[in-house]
């Protein structure tokens, strides 16, 4: 709760700071804001704070919520340094960008703390509205305009679907509150509660859209491609983490008792997402579009833990979200520097980067290895934990599919590594500022720490 209040206030303060003559000071100030919010979130660790009564609980700040809020704020903190080119270029709207990021974090925290479907809905909306705007923040760019418009129209449509689902759930149970829905769902005879199941299906479809899982993934490549890189990295890490945590919370807190009812749907979505995400990524020539498909496939991996749905799932999702976020931010960070300098998001832009910028190439290599799930990186243990959660439910065939798809993943993740080290340089050295270098190195260190000492993060919940 403290972090929500702080982030809202900081967002407003930041809007006023935008009146200052120089925009350069905004970046350090916002980083301090985020650090304070992170501290406020972590302070709640180990205690259960319930807000707004026993009967009408609106949000629960438990360890689950604290952990996922921290992952989101930390990701935002790691993304910010790459916006330095905006600050140096005195971008006229920088204060608004940062404020929208802070507001969307408020929505993200609501999505992991909600105990009431109304809070879930508001959280999703706050997060999405900020993202619709940031997707179109490059006003003169047609691709950015298209991304914003597409995301907004599709998002508004799926918001309608979620609301319809919530209305049906209210009709079936008479409440928005998760514990009451859970009790009502368990009391009903399985298969004889069409209103409840229809509501669940529609809410599920809506959240699936928000995490970008197949078959509701069609917006992802275009939107991720057109959005300015820095906000793409925010979408594919913070928004995805919030979405998947909200998804898990919905299934566990409200529908844990009717596992058999939603299992077939969720497992079908998982397999479809894994296949479409990975196979789709192979065909791309643009690195940024490949990362968009890769984010679809990682939503699929995360959903393996949802289908497994046992006591290992929470920890597996948390670890994987963190490992995925760290590696993805590093990849997008390098992409931002390369595309700013060479004017292209394609694989060819990375040619010879190993010679001109050994550090950037190394960071990108570690990020790709982590995303592919190679040992000694965080991604390996992330996948291991997800698969062991699935193994406990005896879902061997699902693991086989996932491992096969990881093998496909190695192909397209290694294409950029090959381009960086085995092709001749097409251009000059890419300029990198010191703050960015420091951030990239910390991301690599964090990835390797997660790969060598996974125990530090694995048993938190």
């Amino acid at each position, binding site marked *: 709760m403290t972090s*929500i209040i702080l982030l*809202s206030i900081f*967002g*407003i303060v930041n*809007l006023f700071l935008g009146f200052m003559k120089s925009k350069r000071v905004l970046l350090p100030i916002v980083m301090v804001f985020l650090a304070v919010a992170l501290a406020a979130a972590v302070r709640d660790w180990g205690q259960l704070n319930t*807000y*707004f009564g026993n009967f*009408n609980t*609106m*949000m629960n700040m438990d360890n689950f919520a604290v952990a996922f809020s921290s992952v989101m704020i930390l990701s935002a903190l790691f993304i910010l340094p790459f916006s330095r080119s905006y600050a140096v270029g005195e971008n*006229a*709207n920088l204060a*608004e960008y940062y*404020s*929208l990021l802070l*507001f*969307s974090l*408020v*929505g993200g925290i*609501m999505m992991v703390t909600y105990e*009431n479907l*109304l*809070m879930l809905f*508001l959280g999703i*909306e*706050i997060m999405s*509205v*900020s993202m*619709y*705007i*940031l997707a*179109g*923040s490059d*006003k003169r760019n047609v691709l950015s305009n298209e991304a914003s418009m597409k995301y907004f129209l599709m998002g508004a449509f799926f918001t309608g679907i979620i609301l319809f689902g919530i209305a049906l759930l209210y*009709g079936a149970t008479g409440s928005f509150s998760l514990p009451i829905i859970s009790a009502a769902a368990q009391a009903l005879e399985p298969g004889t509660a*069409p*209103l409840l*199941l*229809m509501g669940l299906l529609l809410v599920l479809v809506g959240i699936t859209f928000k995490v970008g899982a197949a078959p509701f993934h069609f917006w992802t490549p275009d939107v991720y491609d057109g959005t300015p890189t820095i906000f793409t990295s925010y979408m594919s890490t913070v928004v995805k983490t919030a979405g998947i945590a909200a998804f898990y919370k919905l299934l566990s807190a409200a529908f844990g008792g009717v596992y058999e009812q939603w299992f077939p749907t969720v497992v079908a979505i998982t397999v479809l997402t894994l296949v479409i995400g990975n196979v789709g990524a192979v065909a791309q020539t643009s690195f940024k579009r490949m990362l968009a498909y890769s984010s679809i496939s990682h939503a699929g991996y995360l959903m393996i833990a949802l289908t497994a749905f046992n006591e290992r799932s929470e920890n597996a999702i948390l670890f994987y979200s963190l490992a995925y976020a760290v590696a993805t931010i590093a990849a997008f960070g390098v992409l931002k520097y390369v595309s700013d300098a060479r004017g292209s998001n394609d694989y060819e832009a990375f040619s010879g980067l190993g010679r001109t910028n050994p550090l950037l190439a190394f960071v990108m290599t570690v990020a790709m290895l982590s995303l592919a799930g190679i040992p000694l990186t965080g991604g390996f243990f992330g996948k291991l934990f997800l698969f062991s959660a699935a193994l406990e439910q005896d879902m061997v065939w699902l693991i086989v599919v996932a491992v096969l798809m990881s093998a496909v993943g190695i192909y397209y993740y290694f294409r950029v590594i090959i381009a960086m080290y085995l092709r001749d340089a097409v251009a000059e050295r890419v300029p990198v500022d010191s703050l960015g270098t420091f951030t990239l190195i910390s991301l690599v260190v964090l990835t390797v720490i997660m790969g060598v000492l996974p125990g530090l993060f694995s048993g938190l919940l």
Partner: protein
Amino acid sequence: MTGNIFYFLAFLTLFAAIGVVASKNPVYSVLFMILTFFALTGQYILLNAQFVAAVNFIVYMGAIMVLFLFVIMFLNMREDTEQHKPLMSKIAAAISGGILLVIMVAALKDVDAGGYNAENFNSQIGLVEHLGQVLFRDYLLPFELASVLFLAAMAGAVMLGKREPGEQNRF
């Protein structure tokens, strides 16, 4: 009596909603939409939700529809300038929408919607007093947090609409 009014309003809603989608002229679409909202307002009154009915009447039928008409006027849309979807995508949309309809009808046809009990029915439930109490007591937190949503939307709208340095107004 109430049942007959319900069926009439439901028919009117569906008829007007189909009219919104089917009419070629955007101005007709908007007028059909006003009719849809009007019929919905009638449903709210039947549900004893007078406040929601009034708000729906003023905000949706009044303010938002005027906004719609203004936008259509500014865009100067006509039948011949409107882009038409290829036939294939129309068929595909009709099939997938139809499948969803079949599934929902099949799943929801047996639902026991539950009646109301005339003895302990609170006729004041949709009035402003009760609504205010629910809003400011039970749902205070979401109510307050909705302000963040509006703030974000407002800041974004200003940011997107603001003139950049060196840009000229085209209107």
